[in-house]
């Protein structure tokens, strides 16, 4: 197959500066796409009783076509991982799920994304409750320049979730407990959140998200700025959170994806190449691109 | 690099040009300072003088009579002013100070009269005051209204308190600071005049002149008298905005703004051109300027400026100064000063 050879050829350019790689890969896959007339995703994109469904989602940043016709379901109480090389659109994709892309100028989205059967890009949909339901944790921990307590209490406070101080205290405590941070910070709740270590900050951000009691949590490479020990703590946390929440996690670490997720979706240059159960994707990928990526030929 | 050199070269060129321009050139224009009351008259004369002769137009700074005399008396020489305007006569202390600094020959020129008016906005009714009212309203300490020869801090808040025939309005008077000749003349003519109506105060003049002056000349400082600077025009603007306030300024400002403000009657005399010229209006004072004789043949144009100022077309009854509000002197007085200026006769002592 010519297409695969093309990709194989670009495999080595991964060592070149990122920009060049992308351009080369784009050039290469330009040819790939011509050959791959049917761009349908390999694997089962649907699940029973999906929490969120995406159909034919396209995203443009100005002229740049960042996501190309992606369809994918997110099931209940599962952790679904998005993997793929840099710039493949996985972050863009999850930012569509709670309309964080709205804040980016020149971003245009087509297609349908539903949450519990309701189109979140529908005319009368309000982003505020949507985002309260679909929380998000970012690549770089971004605690507010306030105390730890205030960081957690911020969401419940603006949404009016606590009737009084005691309830708020309780929410803060449970959230911190769930995020596994309680024991570390319970005596320092008044200290600024920015004073914590990177891993703690990220868990603080997770706790902040949990405090609003969302139904879906989006995590955009939550461990990329952390060391392996902090990463391990977060991964354990994700595992625990799965009990109560639906989690969509973007990661460029395949190991992490295999450790925390039940399903994995592989993105490549804006296309969703393959979806499947995590063990299947990592042990027996159906698509050549997936296999190349997983086996480390590029990425 | 080359650009940098060019830049540097230009800088040096400029600095050198300035240097050469400022080094060693003489002053060829008259430098006048002094009263803000005389300023409008002096500037008109200066302008006429500049336009009708080949001399440069004098430079005139408005510094107030006190400040002007101080600068004037600082010494003889190009760096000191040649002429100072004053809205009152030079005082003995100033005269001595001048002499002490080498300014021994001073030519005194009286140019005319100016009424000091207490004016208020046309939106309110004109006030009919007496000098006694003015004294009682504005002095720092006034005779105890209960009688007796004691002084108490000024208790009056409204004009009605001062005199029941006056309106029930708060006393708010905008007037000049003590550096101003207008203020000097005002306290001397209006307040002292009013204070004299108390016989015991009048009697004090002979006994204890200093205490007498302190009573007559000290203006209250509790906010009823607002020192509004020497900017008479702004006072007029402010009066227009505030119908309750009175302003103290020269007649020329009243004359210019007759559509906005009106002068209060003082001792039943309205401040009009005629009344002041005839000496009816009690609060009017002469205006002067003083010239250093030592400068006369050195700084170009001083003599010619004096001629212009003392010409009939300037200070005469139909002269252009009267149009600006200066009240001309009687013919004999004008002639007297005209002659003394022509003869450059100097002030020997203050009679």
């Amino acid at each position, binding site marked *: 197959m010519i297409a695969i050879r093309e990709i194989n050829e670009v495999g080595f350019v991964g060592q070149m500066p990122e920009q060049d790689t992308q351009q080369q890969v784009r050039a290469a896959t330009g040819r790939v796409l011509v050959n791959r007339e049917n761009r349908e995703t390999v694997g089962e994109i649907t699940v029973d009783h999906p929490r969120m469904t995406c159909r034919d989602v396209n995203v443009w940043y100005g002229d740049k076509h960042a996501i190309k016709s992606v369809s994918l379901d997110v099931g209940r109480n599962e952790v679904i991982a998005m993997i793929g090389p840099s710039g493949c659109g996985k972050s863009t994709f999850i930012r569509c799920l709670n309309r964080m892309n709205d804040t980016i100028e020149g971003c245009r989205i087509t297609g349908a994304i539903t949450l519990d059967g309701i189109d979140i890009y529908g005319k009368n949909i309000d982003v505020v409750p949507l985002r309260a339901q679909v929380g998000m944790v*970012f690549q770089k921990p971004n605690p507010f*320049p306030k105390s730890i307590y205030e960081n957690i209490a911020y969401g419940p406070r603006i949404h009016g979730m606590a009737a009084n101080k005691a309830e708020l205290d309780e929410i803060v405590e449970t959230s911190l407990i769930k995020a596994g941070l309680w024991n570390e910070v319970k005596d320092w709740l008044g200290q600024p959140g920015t004073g914590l270590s990177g891993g703690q900050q990220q868990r603080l951000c997770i706790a902040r998200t949990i405090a609003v009691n969302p139904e879906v949590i*989006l995590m955009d490479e939550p461990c990329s700025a952390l060391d392996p020990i902090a990463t391990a703590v977060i991964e354990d946390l994700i595992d625990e959170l799965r009990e109560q929440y639906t989690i969509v996690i973007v990661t460029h670490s395949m190991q992490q994806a295999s450790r925390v997720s039940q399903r994995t979706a592989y993105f490549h240059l804006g296309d969703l190449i393959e979806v499947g159960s995590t063990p299947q994707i990592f042990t027996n990928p159906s698509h050549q691109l997936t296999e190349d990526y997983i086996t480390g030929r590029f990425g | 690099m080359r650009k940098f050199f060019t830049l540097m070269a230009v800088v*040096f060129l400029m600095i050198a040009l300035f240097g050469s321009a400022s080094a060693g050139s003489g002053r060829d224009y008259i430098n006048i300072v002094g009263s803000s009351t005389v300023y409008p008259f002096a500037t008109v004369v200066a302008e006429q003088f500049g336009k009708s002769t080949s001399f440069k137009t004098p430079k005139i700074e408005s510094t107030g009579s006190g*400040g002007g005399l101080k600068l004037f008396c600082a010494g*003889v*020489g190009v760096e000191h002013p040649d002429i100072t305007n004053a809205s009152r006569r030079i005082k003995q202390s100033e005269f001595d100070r001048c002499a002490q600094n080498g300014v021994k020959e001073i030519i005194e020129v009286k140019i005319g009269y100016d009424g000091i008016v207490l004016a208020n906005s046309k939106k309110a009714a004109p006030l009919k005051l007496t000098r006694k009212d003015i004294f009682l309203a504005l002095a720092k300490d006034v005779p105890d209204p209960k009688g007796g020869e004691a002084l108490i801090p000024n208790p009056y808040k409204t004009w009605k308190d001062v005199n029941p025939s006056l309106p029930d309005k708060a006393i708010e008077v905008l007037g000049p600071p003590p550096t101003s000749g207008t203020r000097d003349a005002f306290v001397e003519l209006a307040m002292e005049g009013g204070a004299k109506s108390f016989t015991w105060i009048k009697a004090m003049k002979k006994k204890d002149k200093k205490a007498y002056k302190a009573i007559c000349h000290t203006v209250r400082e509790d906010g009823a008298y607002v020192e509004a600077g020497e900017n008479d025009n702004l006072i007029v603007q402010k009066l227009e*905005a505030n119908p309750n306030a009175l302003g103290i300024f020269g007649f020329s400002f009243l004359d210019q703004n007759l559509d906005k403000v009106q002068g209060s009657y003082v001792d039943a005399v309205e401040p009009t051109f005629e009344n002041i010229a005839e000496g009816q209006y009690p609060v009017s004072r002469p205006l002067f300027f003083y010239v250093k004789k030592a400068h006369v043949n*050195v700084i170009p144009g001083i003599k010619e400026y004096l001629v212009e100022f003392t010409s009939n077309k300037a200070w005469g009854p139909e002269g252009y100064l009267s149009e600006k509000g200066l009240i001309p002197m009687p013919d004999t007085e004008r002639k007297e000063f005209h002659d003394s200026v022509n003869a450059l006769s100097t002030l020997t002592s203050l009679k």
Partner: protein
Amino acid sequence: MSPTTLIIILLVLSTFGYYVGRRRALVVGCDSAGVKNLHSRPIYYGSLTALCCGIPAMLLFGFWLTFESTIMTNLVVSELPEALQNLPTAELNLQVNKIRNLVDGNIVAGVVEAEIQAAADHYRNLQATSNAALAVAAISVAILGLMIVRAKITPLLRARNRVEQIIRYMLIACSTIAIFTTIGIVLSVLFESIRFFNAVPIAEFLFGLEWSPQMAIRADQVGSSGAFGAVPVFVGTLLISAIAMCVAVPIGLMSAIYLSEYANKTFRAVAKPLIEILAGIPTVVYGFFAALTVAPFIRDSGDLLGLGVSSESALAAGAVMGIMIIPFVSSLSDDFINAVPQALRDGAYSLGATQSETIKNVILPAALPGIVGGVLLAVSRAIGETMIVVMAAGLAANLTLNPLETVTTVTVQIVTLLVGDQEFDSPKTLAAFALGLLLFVVTLLLNIIALKVVRKYREQYE
């Protein structure tokens, strides 16, 4: 030869030196093994020659001009007849002025006496001689410099380093001017202030509650009591500044928020420069506006409400000053709001905060230190603002916090105390310098704090 011609000649000479130096370098460089042998590029040899030719000559020229006038005057005076020479200095000075006017061809007053005319001719001669001497001296210095450098040019001469060294010294000299300015300011107000504090105790000045500097300036005049307590003046200044801030901070901050968070590009492109026009309007225009438009308006509206508003109310001056400061606050706040990282906004939005909640609870607290610094800078500007208060605020130093009353400010007092009356001995004029010192110190402290805060804030997000 006039100084201007001389300067031009020196410049031409320097240019000539440049070519001589370059040429020499080429010749010297080629003498050995080609141009490559030269330490620096030929233009540096040229530049070095030009500098060594021009700078000493220019310095000589400068010194000459500085002292020329004094020396010549003395020479001329010594030639004057005894009678004139024996005049007191001041009158001699006048005669010299007359001579100078004659020399300059100005109109001269009165009759020109023969001896004065002679002196003027003498002066003119001297001037001609001096100019000629200066020309000869400067040109010879220039040529000498040129020759020396030219002779020194060898392939080993490190011309570039020397040129760069000279330029570096010039740059250093330029950068120290700021220090000299500060020293100049401090000295120029300090000496007079010390004299003032000799007359008025410093504690009385700083803590006195009464300000009434209108002392009698002559012995026979009865002035006011002459109290020099700066507290009312400062309270007045702070009152007006506070009013200004009450106008400027909310409006400036809210406009900055709207422009940076809500407005679309076109709106921003139009509104931002328009707001900034407010900062470009000279303060004298604001003063005129305040005195003639705003103050009467406030006064009239006060009357409608049955309030007694002074026609020189602090409110009018403060409000107009606030308008002036709006763009200052808004553009600084804009900078700081834009400096808040997008990640913080994302964090808040992802929790479901509305835009205003994000702004109020996340962006503003994050930008607060910067904004506070900016506001402090604005306060220091308000305190030092002069023309608006000179034209619209009063002179009466009332110790009050009522914005409807008249108050006075430090700058108003400086202007009224100093404009015109220039003699440096009464506490009245000296008080202006003490106030100037106080003003300088207060704004200095404010600026230092503000700049520290701002810098710290900038580092936080850099």
